[in-house]
């Protein structure tokens, strides 16, 4: 059982370097007003997997499903309130990023106000006494001494509060860290400029438009598929590349891209993808990507020896120090270490 769990984890890691599917709306509603409401609602709902992101920002599967549910209910004519109420009934108020005002949350909302009032009252009180009001001094001989005596604990409280807040900020604060919208996030993942992402999106749009009128162009389908793959949309990439391959773009690179898109889409090397990678190897016996994924497929079947053999062959065909070679060597070493085998055959 333990070994199985480790192997499963390893598999997850092997497929992890590739971006997961989608951000933002997956199936925007046709009605722009309704879609705007869906987006606004999604921004107010918490992704229960990531917990500090809204479902609008999250690329977790559950968030995607929840976005779908929100759109479905809005399309069915529900009001915003009813959508939120339906989700609150299942997940509790936690699902709302902004907690509602109700008896249970009253301390939360009232506390800042109370602190302000209390602090203000204390301040005013101290100020008045210092003013040396004659009647107060007459009534209470100690009153004049109080401000100074009272200053110690209050100053101590202030010092502790500022000290803790300051330390926490210095340790945890990241004032320079900008939030990351989709394009910069993609750009960072792909190691390119943000402008390149926008350019690629533009290219995908142009290709989509061209293919709407000329659906028979194999090259254009393949290019569109590659653009989608680059943009982290593997399901669309696989569909487009499939069209391209079926229409005759059967070179090793295109077929390899198709299989890779399928793997990214499923986060699993299934039999169909494996067959395509085998076809790629028949065309280009040294293709490192095909070798890598065929190794992963073997590992999925718990066939460690075969996985190692595939990876070693692929690594040997690559020049020393190339990205694929480094990557393959890294995984070979890790797998060998896990299985107590020497990294070199």
């Amino acid at each position: 059982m333990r070994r199985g769990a480790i192997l499963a984890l390893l598999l997850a890691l092997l497929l992890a370097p590739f971006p997961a599917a989608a951000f933002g709306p997956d199936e925007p509603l046709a009605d722009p007003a309704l879609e705007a409401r869906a987006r606004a609602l999604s921004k107010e709902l918490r992704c229960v997997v990531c917990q500090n992101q809204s479902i609008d920002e999250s690329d977790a599967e559950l968030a995607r499903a929840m976005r779908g549910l929100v759109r479905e209910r809005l399309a069915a004519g529900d009001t915003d309130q009813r959508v939120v109420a339906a989700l609150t009934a299942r997940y509790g108020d936690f699902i709302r990023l902004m907690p509602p005002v109700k008896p249970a949350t009253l301390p939360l909302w009232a506390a800042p106000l109370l602190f302000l009032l209390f602090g203000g009252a204390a301040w005013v009180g101290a100020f008045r006494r210092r003013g040396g009001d004659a009647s107060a001094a007459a009534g209470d001989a100690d009153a004049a001494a109080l401000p100074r005596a009272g200053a110690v604990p209050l100053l101590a409280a202030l010092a502790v509060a500022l000290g803790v807040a300051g330390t926490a900020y210095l340790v945890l604060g990241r004032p320079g860290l900008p939030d990351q919208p989709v394009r910069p996030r993609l750009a960072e993942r792909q190691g390119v400029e943000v402008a390149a992402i926008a350019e690629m999106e533009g290219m995908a749009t142009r290709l989509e438009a061209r293919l709407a009128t000329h659906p028979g162009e194999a090259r254009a389908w393949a290019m569109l598929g590659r653009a989608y793959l680059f943009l982290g949309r593997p399901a669309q990439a696989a569909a487009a590349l499939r069209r391209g391959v079926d229409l005759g773009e059967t070179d090793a690179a295109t077929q390899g891209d198709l299989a890779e898109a399928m793997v990214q889409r499923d986060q699993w090397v299934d039999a169909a993808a494996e067959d395509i990678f085998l076809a790629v190897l028949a065309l280009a016996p040294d293709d490192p990507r095909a070798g890598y994924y065929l190794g992963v497929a073997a590992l999925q079947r718990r066939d460690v020896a075969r996985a190692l053999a595939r990876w070693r062959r692929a690594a040997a065909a690559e020049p020393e120090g190339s990205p694929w070679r480094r990557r393959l060597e890294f995984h070979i070493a890790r797998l060998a270490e896990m299985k107590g085998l020497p990294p070199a055959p």
Partner: protein
Amino acid sequence: MTARRMILWLPLAALLLLLAVAGVRLSRPEAPLPSPLVGKPVPDFALPLLGGDGVLAAAALRGRPVVVNVFASWCVACAAEHPVWLAAAQEAEIVGIAWMDDPEKTRAWLAERGDPYRAVGVDRDSRAALDLGVTGAPETYVLAADGRIVFKFAGVVTPEIWRRRIRPLLGGGS
């Protein structure tokens, strides 16, 4: 007079208390989210059965206590708790919901590890999961004979949890 002096220390005491509570709560592992569904009737889900044309409907689970276990073949923690269900299957009715999982893979997973479930509903698009307020796998619900959710547990069910917290809830009806 001393009472008055004491009051002045109150803000400092309150602040230290706040810091202590925050420190303890932040250093502890996350507590599972409370579910508002406990005590309420189970939402009315209906899922296609794994390997059959039938339907796993919430309505059909009435009349006796039932354990509903949300699992998936991709879920490593589910494999960890699986032996508990295999053992429990002899004394309780356990129903599975295969969450966001390819039925083929679910079947292979169950074939490899053993199938403790009386029935398995296929929930690929999180339909039932969203209805049940699922936040991750594995997750376990206990339904009373009248169809109310009487217990929810997010995470790996250990033999201990099964014995102490779930089995007692099944006592009457089964």
